[in-house]
Structures are given as C-alpha cells and as structure tokens.
C-alpha cells in the first residue's frame, strides 16, 4: 500500500512538473484543426519525412548496410517507378509546415518498442532533425501489452476518434508476402489504428488480392504504392537487410543464399566443412525449447532442417518443386491444389510418413493461436474450414485424401497458398494427435522434436548448446560432409554471435544487426553476405482525431 501511494504521489509530482513547463499561448487556427490533428494534413506528414536525412543515416549510422525506403516494398520488380523519394530538404519541410500551420507548441508523442542501441540512436537522430525544422518531439519506449497500445482501430473508421494515444509509432514490418505490407492500409483491417478510410484506398488494397496472376498482382501493388506515396499515409524510412555469415571452413557448394527468416533450399547435404569431426557451428540453439513452426516457421536453422515442407522454395522464397510432395498441381483458377506425396519418407523415430500427417497438420495448426497471418489465411480459405473452426464439422471438408494424394479445395482464392505450403512444415500425427493445439508450444514434443528433415536432434543442453546429426534415412542424399550441426543456444538476437564468431565457433549464421555485420566483417576468416529481405522500418502516423498526448 505504501509503495502504491508513493508511486502515485511521485507520478502526480512529475505530471505537475511537466505541466508547469510547457504552458504556451495557442497558435492561430489552421486548416488541420477541423480534422482533429495536425497529422491529418498531408503537408505535415510530408514535412516530417523531408526533414529526415535518411541518406546520411543509411550511409553513416548503418555504414551503407541498409536501403532508404520510398515505399514498404523494397526495390525490385514489385516496386513502382517514379515514386517521390522525399529526399532530405529541410527548407521545403519548413515551408510546408508553415503553409499547413504547424502548431509550434505541439510536441509529437513518438513511441517505439525495441530497446536496442541502434533503435535508440536512430530515435535520437530523428529527434534532432525534427528539432532543426522546429518540430518538438518526445520519444518513449512502450512496455507491456503492445498490441493494445499500438494496433487497436477506432470504432468509426472514417471520423475516429483514435483509440491509440501516440502521434507516430516507429515499427518494423516483416512480410512473407507483399500483402502483409499493404493489407493494413485497408480501413477494415483489424490492425489499422492510424489511417482513416480514404476514398478509393480500400479498393486498391483489395485489387492486390483479387488475382492469382503475378503480373496483375504487381500492377495492383504498384498502383497502391503510388497512392500511398502521394498521400504519405505512412512514412517509410528504410529497408533492413539481413546478413548471412559464413566461415572460411565452410563451402556451401554454390548454393544461393536468401531470406533466412524463412526456409529456402540451401542444398546443405552438399555443403563441405573443413573440420575433422564434420561439425558445422551455428547459433540459435534452444534456450528453453525448440520453437514450434507457428508464427515463425523457419526463423531458426533447426526449424528448416528438422522438418520438411510439402513444397520446396528457392532463395527468393518462390515455391519450386515438391519436397514431401513428389509433385503437385494447381488448377488454372487457383482454387484447387493436389499434392502427390512421396512414399519413401520416414519420421526420425522410424515411423512412415503418410497423408494422415498432412491432414492432421492442417487441422491442427489452424487452431494454434499465433499462427502467422499468411498461413492462417491459407488454411481458412480451404472449403469447410469455417465449419470446422466453429465446431460444426469434425474435419475440414475441403481436404480430400486418396492413398498418397491430398487434394485441397478452396472456397476463396488465396494467392499465397503455395507460399504457405513451402514454409509451414508437416508435423507428426502419431506424436501430437490428441494434444491441445492451443498450447502447441508448451507440448513436451518441443523438448526433442521429431521431423522428417535431413537432420535430426542428437543432443540438447538447453541454454548452452544443442547438436543435430545427419539423418541417414533421409530420402535425398548429397555429397557434402556436414555430419553434425552444433548450435550455440541463443534467441533471435544473439548477443554472443560476434564473440563466438571471433573465437572460430561460427560457420554459418545470420542476423539483422548492422553492428554484428560490422564486427564480423572485421574478422579475417568470416564472410558477410548481405541479403535483401522484406523487412521495412516505418513510422505509422496517427491521422485519426486525437488530442496531443504531451501537453
């Protein structure tokens, strides 16, 4: 009780101090006042972007190891030409702010949710850039229930008022498919807390999902990018790269490296390691458990190597030939996929793999909370999925099995269905059937998972290291010599990666940290391979009416 009242007392005092410090006269009425926030004025959003010298930040802070962003999409065939880059122009920013009547006593409330040094440094830099054009800002790191503080949309999607308190939110958007970047611009999106309904915008978003044809998809995305770019509905800052580190002891046999946040064909069975014991060193070993393939199906190397998918993917994450499926076919309208399964596949415990496992996995994962939106959308698009989820059916009627052939019939088109089946693996029915899909991760299965992949778990010392060994019964073979894979225990952000690389105990690893890349780049025996990934850092700008959070 004493603690509580002391905290309350302190907070009151602090609030009074703040309140006393920032009393100033109100400015004259401006155009934005009818809209309930200055951020509703496009000129102000553009000014905020123009005031940031992203080129210098990328060159200096990131030492060139990032890309300035003009849209959510990174450069390539999915990005429209002729988008306004809003290059650094503080004079123009000032002019726009004046024109729009920026209230000089307004302090932007900017939130972020990463506590790493680089994020904090970037925030400090942006604060200074804005200060030079006369925009005051205050940055704070969010704690606790982030979803409730960041992504709750208002009841009225056109007029607000806002359900979130912040003015700008610094966020990262990781996308497996382009849709993950843009679906949230739709006024009905469950996570759109900042962009009010705009005439024509929803239709442009929907157009990107309406076709299975890649060229038509690209055209739709480009039209949408132009719209967003002109109105600056959010402020894209930069595209993060990922860095794959390889040691001189490792020969990856000419494989192409790609987005290692997900699974792609690495031909690891052909890799050669120059170590007498045939051991390849990496990180990402389990701290407390092997991560189940729900929200991230291939973040860790072990997820990729322990489990096989129905379909394989190349380094660009484009689905290629079959994996657990000998071959597969998609109907011309995209509404039916047929997988013909291999019959020579065995689980690591010796049991035969069958179509039963495929059906089980689909019906199981669809009930697992936290399943990635891409996969969930695919599974829910299968005919009969809704009835199954509602408890009206005991199975998904759109899944049909005939011997070793599985046929999926969709009720709505999902352009990303093959992508899903190239990333989400098949789980063993004989070990997981009967368990609760809601607490999938809490299942003891994830202490020593059993898959069908080219490597299997050999030894696990949680929080220290784990070792995978080559699966002799695997249905494919290679001429490489990597017998074992040693994984230092670490989370995704491995603070010990550089130390381990430095002491010669990393042959293959990846991270998104520029600091890691700089340090490992300085080690003679290591090579840093930068890779483009769909990972964009942005400011979401709260354009719904809201009062200033910092007074």
């Amino acid at each position, binding site marked *: 009780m004493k603690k509580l009242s002391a905290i309350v007392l302190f907070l009151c005092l602090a609030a009074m101090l703040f309140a006393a410090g920032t009393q100033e006269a109100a400015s004259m009425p401006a155009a934005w006042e009818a809209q309930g926030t200055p951020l509703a004025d496009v000129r102000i959003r553009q000014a905020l972007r123009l005031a940031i010298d992203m080129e210098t930040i990328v060159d200096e802070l990131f030492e060139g190891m990032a890309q300035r962003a003009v849209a959510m999409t990174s450069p390539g065939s999915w990005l429209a030409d002729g988008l306004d880059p809003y290059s650094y122009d503080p004079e123009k920013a000032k002019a726009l702010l004046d024109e729009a009547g920026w209230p000089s006593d307004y302090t932007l409330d900017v939130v972020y949710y990463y506590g790493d040094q680089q994020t904090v440094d970037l925030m400090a830099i942006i604060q200074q850039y804005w200060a030079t054009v006369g925009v005051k800002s205050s940055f704070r790191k969010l704690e606790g229930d982030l979803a409730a503080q960041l992504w709750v949309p208002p009841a009225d999607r056109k007029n607000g008022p806002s359900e979130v308190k912040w003015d700008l939110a610094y966020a990262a958007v990781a996308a497996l498919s382009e849709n993950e970047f843009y679906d949230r611009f739709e006024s009905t999106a469950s996570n759109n807390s900042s962009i009010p309904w705009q005439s024509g915008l929803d239709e442009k978003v929907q157009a990107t999902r309406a076709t299975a044809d890649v060229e038509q998809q690209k055209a739709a995305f480009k039209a949408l990018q132009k719209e967003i770019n002109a109105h600056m509905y959010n402020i894209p800052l930069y595209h993060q790269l990922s860095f794959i580190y390889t040691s001189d002891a490792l020969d990856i046999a000419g494989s192409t490296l790609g987005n290692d946040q997900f699974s792609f064909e690495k031909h690891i069975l052909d890799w050669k390691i120059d170590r007498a014991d045939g051991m390849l060193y990496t990180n990402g070993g389990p701290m407390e458990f092997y991560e189940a393939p729900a929200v991230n199906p291939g973040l860790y190397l072990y997820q990729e190597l322990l489990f096989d998918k129905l379909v394989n993917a190349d380094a660009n994450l484009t689905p290629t030939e079959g994996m657990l499926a000998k071959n597969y076919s998609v109907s011309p309208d995209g509404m039916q996929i047929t997988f013909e399964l291999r019959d020579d596949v065995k689980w690591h415990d010796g049991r035969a793999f069958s179509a039963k496992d495929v059906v089980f996995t689909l019906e199981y994962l669809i009930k697992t*909370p936290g399943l990635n939106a891409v996969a969930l959308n695919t599974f829910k698009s299968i005919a009969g999925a809704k009835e199954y989820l509602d408890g009206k059916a005991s199975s998904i009627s759109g899944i049909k099995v005939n011997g070793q052939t599985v046929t999926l019939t969709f009720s709505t088109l999902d352009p990303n269905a093959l992508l899903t089946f190239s990333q989400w693996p098949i789980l063993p029915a004989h070990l997981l059937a009967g368990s609760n899909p809601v607490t999938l*991760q*809490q299942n003891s299965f*994830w202490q020593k998972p059993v898959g069908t992949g080219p490597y299997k778990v050999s030894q696990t010392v949680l*929080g220290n290291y784990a070792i995978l060994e080559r699966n002799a019964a695997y249905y494919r073979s290679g001429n490489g010599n990597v017998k074992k894979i040693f994984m*230092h*225990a670490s989370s995704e952000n491995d603070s*010990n990666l550089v130390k381990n690389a430095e002491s010669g105990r990393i042959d293959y690893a990846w991270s998104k940290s520029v600091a890691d890349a700089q340090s490992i780049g300085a080690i003679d025996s290591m090579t840093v391979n930068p890779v483009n990934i769909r990972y964009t850092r942005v400011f979401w700008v709260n354009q719904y009416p809201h009062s200033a959070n910092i007074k």
Partner: protein
Amino acid sequence: MIPFIIRKVLVLIPMLFVISFLIFLGIELMPGDAVDFMIPPDALATISQAELDVLRAELGLDDPFLARYGNWIGQVMKGDFGYSLQSGVSVRDLLAQKLPATIELSLAALVISTLLGSLLGVVSALNKGRLGDHVLTVAGMIGVAIPQFLFGLVMIVLFVFQMELLPVGGRMTPGNEAFFQRLDHLILPAIVLGLSMTAGVMRYSRASMLDSLSKEYIRTARSKGIPEWRVNLIHGLRVAMTPVAVLIGFRLPILIGGSVVIEQVFQWPGVGQMFVAAVRSQNTPVIMMVAFFSVSIVLTASILVDIATALLDPRVKLS
C-alpha cells in the same frame, strides 16, 4: 535448543506465505502478461486478440487473481512448482537443470574471493599505514568498483581474443562434460565474479587481523621470543579467520543473485540467465520460483546462522 529451532522455523512459515503473496501480487501488477511476449512485436499486428485470448484462457491467465494465487500455493504445497508458460517444462526440472551451473560458478567465486581476500587483508594489516597497505586496499577495491559486465567484456577481449587462452563462454562443450574438462570455461567468469567480492572479505579480514594483533596473547607470544612471522601467522591468522568464516556464511545466499550479470556476459546457463529471460518475457511461474527459492535460501541461512551463534556463544539467550 530444540524449542528454539522450532520457534525459528515456525516464524519462517507465515513469512514465506506473505512473501510469496507479495511476489505474486508484484507480477500481477506488471503491465501485460506472458502471452504478450510469446509473439514477436513485429508479428503482433497480424494476429487477432481473440486468438491470443484463447491461449490466455488455456494457460489459466484469465482466472481471477486470488484464484490463481490459491491455485499456485496449493500446487507448491504438493511439491509442484508449476510449468514454464513459454515451454511447458516443469519449473522443478528447469531449476534442477540450471541450479548446478549457478552453484558451481558461485562456489568457485566464493573460494577465489575468500582466499584472495583474506590473504590480501592479512598482508595489508601487517603493513598497516604503509604504502603496501594502501596499494592493496586500492587494488582490492578496483574489483568491486568496476562495473561487472565491463570487467567481464574486457577480460574476454584480453584472454579470449588477444591471447586465445580460454573459450569465450558457455559451461561445456560436447564430449567434454566432466568437471575437469570444462574447467577452462569456469575460469574467467569465476575470476570476474570472485574479484568483485574480494574487497568485502579483504576489508573484514584486515580489520579482524588488526584487532587480534592488538590482543594480550599476541604480546605474550612475542615476549616469549617466538619469531614475528610465526606470531602473525599461527596466532593472529587463526583468530582473525573466525569472523571471516561467519561473513562467508552470510554471503552464500547472495551468490544466487550475485551472478545474474556474469551469467549474461559469459553465456553461463544458470539460474540468473533464466531469471533475466523470465522477467523479460513475464514467465510468471519461473519468476515466482526463482524469487521464492532465493528468498527461502536467504531466510534458511539466517536461521542457521542464528542457531550456530546460539550454539557457539553462551551469552545469546535461548528463551
């Protein structure tokens, strides 16, 4: 004697109840819960709250506060400490995995700090007021005044990267799991942790050595013509060590909390590392158990010290 011990233990029980309730209440007051940390923040935007609520319900996180506490305390009394919310592994198994690592590191540090601290303290006392005394005092103090993690990182740079003498971290490597095979992993963290505890022991042993050197029997020994070094060593040291031993008894429980930072720097798979991870992800059962466990050790140790003092010192009244 027996009633004295029984009384002490009886006082302990309600205290543990109060403490467990306070920790539980504290965790309740934390913003958010474990489910918020199971999904990476980038992905949170794409997952519906309703789905997460299903997981919350399944993990029992949406029960009323008192019900959850009652449930927890009931389980603990049956010897079941709950399950990690992240992995579903039983907390008892987790503790059984991590505790040996922490105890190993802490004991090694304790040995280093005791040997070094009492040695430096005695030498310092024998040179009281002279340059040597000051130099040793300053040297002892540096270990405690350098931020532990900086000390650790600098040691890694020196001994691992520059001289390539020792492994960078972890507790063992595969195939080298016996104690003597993994000794090289233990050296650096134990030295850094040990040096940070040396100053306290040194200060104490210096004071008690000075104290005992001024005692009557030392003067008697000197007057009997026993050589100076023998007087100092045999007589002074023996007496001076007694309070140091008590000091160590008191330090033992602190070691559980003392290695949190070092475990992080040296990737040491112990209780401290587990605790930091649990606090960051609000893994309630694990936080509860580590906190509760360390409190129990502290309280039990203090009772043991009370009992030992009562046994040794007839002046302490048992009534």
